């Protein structure tokens, strides 16, 4: 188990180093395009109108409250008893469930990773 965790750390280290090197190796033309994209994005901030409290705000708030109440009622009707919301993707993804039940490697790795603050 120790070996597996060591190998995984080695994979993490080597692959990250390769990725970092490839980022650094980016060409000047790409950097220029990224700088233009960034300037365009920041232009959105510069040119967007500052919002002022408007007459339609109370109407909008009332409409939002109505929509929220409707959605809340729908969610209540659709909710399955006994399953926490954050578990839905775990239950929906069969592989995750299998992993937890069957894979002792994962449990050992997760414990090790938690101790290291990674994983």
């Amino acid at each position, binding site marked *: 188990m120790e070996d597996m965790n060591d*190998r995984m750390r080695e*994979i993490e280290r*080597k692959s990250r180093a390769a*990725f970092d090197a*490839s980022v650094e190796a980016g060409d000047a033309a790409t950097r220029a395009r990224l700088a233009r994209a960034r300037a365009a994005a*920041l232009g959105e901030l510069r040119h967007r109108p500052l919002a002022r409290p408007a007459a339609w705000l109370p109407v909008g708030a009332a409409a939002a409250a109505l929509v929220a109440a409707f959605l809340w009622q729908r969610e209540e009707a659709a909710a399955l008893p006994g399953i926490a919301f954050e578990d839905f993707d775990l239950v929906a993804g069969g592989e995750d469930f299998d992993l937890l039940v069957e894979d002792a490697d994962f449990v050992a*790795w997760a414990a090790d990773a938690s101790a290291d603050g990674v*994983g």
Partner: protein
Amino acid sequence: MEDGPVDRSATLEVPFLLGNPCAAREGSLDRERALDRFLAGIERRALRIARLALRNRAEAEDAVQDAMIRLVRRYAGRPEEEWRPLFYRILGNRIIDFQRRERLRRAVTVIWRGSPDDERSADPVESAVDPRGRPDEALEGEELLARIEAVLATLSARQRQAFLLRNFEGLDVAQAAVAMGCSAGSVKTHYFRAMQALEEALPEWKT
């Protein structure tokens, strides 16, 4: 695709509401400078990640630019420490959009031509470098990355995303969970699966 709750707080600068336009302008400039620093610091890594996910440079650049614009539009007013996971959530959604579009394009091409697409040299799995090739050779730099890319192409989208965000971008589990829109436990399992696949596909790492 919806990237999360839309935050309009950036447009409701408190000094402006208090009738101090100078302070509002200064605050807005500070925010713009902070966003510029953030985007400049993240853009090259984000582009590399998008290219690994999409395997298409032009689409990757479009996805990154879209993510920048959406972040600025929607989340500029959020605390700076939230920008990184939010940016990657938006970018992840854009990547999924591009992948769906590509699948649709291929499907339409097949229907139109009545035969499999002959121009599918871009198939990520078939055109990939064999990850099991030359195991005795020490892997360095671009070649190593190419083989990792080939392995990543065989993973599920969620596993690939977990690996890219956790290992390459260095997001912690909680940030990756925000970026992926799932639980921390799910991030861990997807990441572990990705690591297992890499370990199996790159046998020289087993020695």
